[in-house]
């Protein structure tokens, strides 16, 4: 079982290669199924790791049998496992969703994206992390391009910001190497407190560089520009992946680096808290006045990522629990929201919120699941968003920070305003004409299964928070032993 980590990363990469070959032959149409197979196998392997990880074990794999400081190590612990689980689920559903609409190289890019994401969360080597991060970013840049011509500019915008972010990250990695002479995270965790005593300023510079690059990648307030553009113009399954998985990578790296590596006397808690707060307020306010459905969802993602950061910034175990739970929940909820938004846009051909009014041609299920997703993200019990929001609020109050708790709740209501605006338009009385009805394309049932899975997930993790907390317990134990 110890070679599962490398299999999980390598399998999609190999299949990506074969699929791009296959797409040149006449068997083009089977690319999707092959991709589904490989993602499925990888996901099953991830699941197989579950019992051992959740029992508190860590599974390590050394590439080429070189031991830790020399070679590259892959390690699956609670935190990586949680993230890998989210990625596996979302990629699997996205591949299923796109089976009908896409072909060929699209799938090989999705596989590369998947491999990159898993690589980022498994690796214990800083430079290796950078490489995997670039791999996933590049495939994400390309995947943003959809048949819509405007998506080209979104892709380029994302590319500029993403490359700037990774370049800053690489610079930080270089400075760390100059100081510590190693890329291995475990070695760094020992070295950095020593270096901190002699050269604190260099460490602070590295911290600032990392923070900015992570901020860009997870779409925090002053560097959020790519989020609405890329999310709204990408194909639906890619929007799901961007919002559910790619944004989370920034948060993962932050937790990994700053809460396990840079354990110095500097407390970043206040900074993270306020940063998250500003992002949340900003995302909420701008989502309120958006006209485009998917753009609104993108701003709502900024809002939610801000909420996750707040939980981390509170610096208590409860806050971290809430944050990680919300990270997981947000992936489920935003996935279902983007999927249903995609279906709605597909079946009406309209994406402005105002134009959705009185459209009897949207099938019931996407509308229903949009409603449920909206409820979950607003934080209405018994759906999962409520539990995580509750945990974060409790952490804030226990930290004595009433205003933060109040702001979180108020922005829950702001979210209610902008989501229910869409829901009202979706459910307003149908003025169906025959011509329109004929135009509407029927949605294949296989897409409904994606939605159903995510919805079921948010119900289960709302009704049984013990299961969700069980999933994140090891990850929290990593940070607050």
């Amino acid at each position, binding site marked *: 079982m110890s070679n599962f980590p490398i299999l999980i990363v390598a399998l999609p990469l190999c299949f990506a290669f074969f699929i791009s070959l296959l797409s040149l032959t006449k068997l083009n149409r089977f690319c999707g199924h092959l991709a589904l197979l490989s993602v499925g196998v990888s996901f099953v392997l991830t699941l197989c790791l579950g019992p051992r990880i959740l029992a508190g074990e860590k599974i390590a794999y050394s590439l080429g049998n070189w031991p830790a400081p020399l070679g590259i190590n892959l390690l699956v612990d609670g935190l990586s496992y949680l993230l890998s689980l989210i990625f596996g689920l979302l990629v699997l559903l996205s591949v299923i969703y796109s089976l009908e609409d896409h072909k060929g190289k699209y799938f090989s890019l999705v596989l590369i994206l998947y491999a990159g994401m898993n690589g980022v969360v498994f690796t214990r080597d800083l430079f290796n992390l950078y490489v995997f991060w670039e791999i996933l970013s590049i495939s994400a840049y390309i995947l943003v391009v959809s048949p819509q011509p405007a998506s080209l500019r979104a892709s380029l915008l994302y590319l500029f910001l993403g490359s700037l972010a990774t370049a800053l990250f690489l610079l930080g990695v270089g400075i760390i190497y100059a100081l510590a002479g190693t890329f291995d995270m475990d070695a760094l965790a020992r070295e950095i407190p020593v270096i901190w005593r002699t050269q604190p300023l260099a460490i602070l510079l590295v911290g600032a560089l990392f923070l900015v690059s992570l901020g860009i990648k997870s779409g925090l307030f*002053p*560097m959020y520009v790519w989020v609405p553009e890329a999310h709204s113009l990408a194909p639906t399954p890619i929007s799901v992946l961007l919002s559910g998985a790619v944004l989370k990578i920034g948060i993962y790296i932050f937790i990994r680096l700053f809460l396990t590596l840079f354990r110095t006397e500097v407390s970043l808690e*206040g900074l993270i808290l306020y940063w998250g707060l500003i992002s949340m307020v900003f995302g909420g306010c701008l989502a309120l006045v958006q006209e485009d459905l998917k753009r609104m969802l993108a701003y709502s993602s900024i809002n939610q990522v801000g909420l996750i950061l707040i939980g981390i910034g509170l610096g208590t175990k409860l806050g971290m629990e809430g944050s990680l739970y919300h990270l997981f929940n947000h992936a489920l909820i935003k996935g279902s929201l983007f999927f249903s938004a995609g279906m709605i846009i597909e079946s009406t051909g309209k994406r402005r919120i105002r134009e959705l009014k009185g459209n009897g041609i949207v099938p019931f299920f996407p509308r229903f699941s949009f409603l449920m997703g909206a409820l979950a993200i607003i934080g209405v*019990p*018994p759906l999962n968003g*409520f539990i995580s929001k509750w945990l974060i609020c409790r952490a804030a109050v226990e930290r004595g920070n009433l205003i933060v708790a109040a702001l979180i709740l108020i922005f829950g209501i702001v979210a209610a305003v902008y989501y229910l605006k869409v829901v009202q338009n979706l459910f307003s*009385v149908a003025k169906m004409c025959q011509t329109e009805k004929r135009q509407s394309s029927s949605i294949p049932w296989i897409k409904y299964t994606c939605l159903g899975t995510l919805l079921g997930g948010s119900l289960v993790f709302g009704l049984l928070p013990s299961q969700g907390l069980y999933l994140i317990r090891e990850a929290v134990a990593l940070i607050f032993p």
Partner: protein
Amino acid sequence: MILEHYLAFWLHPFGMYIRLDALSTIFLSLTVILGACVLIYSIRYVKEDRIRYYPLLILFLLSLSVTFTSADLLSFYIFFEISSFIAYLLIIHSRTRAAFRAGSKYIIMTFLGAASIFLAIILIHRQLGSYKFSALGELEVSGRSGLIRLIYVLFIAGCFIKAGIMPLHTWLPDAHPAAPSPISALLSGVTIKIGLYGIMRFLFSTGSLSRLAVSYSLIGFAAISMLAGAVLALLQDDAKRLLAYSSISQMGYVLLGIGVGTNLSLAGALYHSINHGLFKGLLFLCAGAVIRSTRMRNLSDLGGLRKRMPITGIVCLIGCLAISGVPIFSGFISKTLLSRSVEKFFCLKIVFLLTASGTFASYLKFYLFTFSGALPQGLTRVKEVSWSMLLPMLFLAGFSIFLGLFPDLILSKVILPAIAEISIFSSAVKFDQVNPLSALYPLILGGLIYYLGIRTKLFFIEESPLWQRTGSQFRKVSVDRFYTEVVAMIEKACLLFKNIERFSFNTHLLFILVFLTGLVMLLYFTPQGILFP
């Protein structure tokens, strides 16, 4: 007897308790009775989208029931929120523009109230480490008085929104008319009681009614609601709006009973909650029957339906008499109990008298405008509604009379056990030595007000010259308008903020650079990190 049960499957690590005591039983039975009536009534009333309506209605009743039987604050909040949201879906059932507007206002205000309650609950949990109602007794001594006061304000304000107490009531007169009539009956009969139930549970569990400040502020808000609700009800033309404003006023009565806090006043409050649930439900069902068969809802368009819809007319009359506090009907009992409990306060007695007469006048208007007078041209072919709609109304009317005829039975079997559980005093309450003539003053005054209103045409907002002159001024000072302005201002600010989207890419990159340098400087000058607030 108190039944308590731990539901393990739900919210497992946090726990959820279901508890049935006498206070819960009162509200639970009210929910069940009214719910059954509404279910039967809806068979013929709701024609469209039944596949959506019935599951929602049943979920609504379930969540209301659990709200009343929860033994801890958390499950109270959870089901409060669930029932609020389902109520939203039911309010927008007709899916017209007006329904959506009313629904939005309702849901935003209710969520605000829920958020405020939630914050209070989290604070309580931080102070006590428990969510259970039974642990609340230690709240008073658990921390700084400022914090405790904040908890009170948050919790009670949240409940006020739900109960439609005066400055926080504005969702109520919009939501009731927009909802289908059976839903309005439930909203008014049961849902808004959640707020008062929450206040009762909370205040009696914490024992904070001995604080004069709490007591006086409750009484103050109650008096405002009573008076303003009654006055505004008088001026409405829309039948269901009239009933909605009257609900605000009646909730004021109940809140007053809670605020005074003696056994007598509590008995009155609980009695009035039951009564109000029944006769307001009945009145909404009557209004629904009238709307169903005439397709009109403005009182000035209606008239003379007594001959066309005789049974509806009779039950409606019973409801009107009951709510006006005429002897032998149920409202008389509870209003007498309440007014006896405030005998010592002269101001409150005046408020009582004025409210009761205003209520009577508005229901005179409601009944007479609908059922007596000449039949308008368009209504000559109106028929009585079907039996499945009449039966629940008849049942509720009968119940109202029953509650009015046997006050001692209800008091001793239903109300006093509940009071014994929550109240600190232990004195018996009996309904005796009552002079039925005491009900005469408000009735006479109410009749006078009605007569004056008709003569001066104050009741017809469009026709009255006084209204045309001052109406716009009045609307300027309305609370509703204030809230709307605030919301509009927030939206305008967000729109202004949206301009950031139009900045060029280079500007955004510059932001990032500035942020980076700022971050470096910040970390440089505060090497110990940004201290936690």
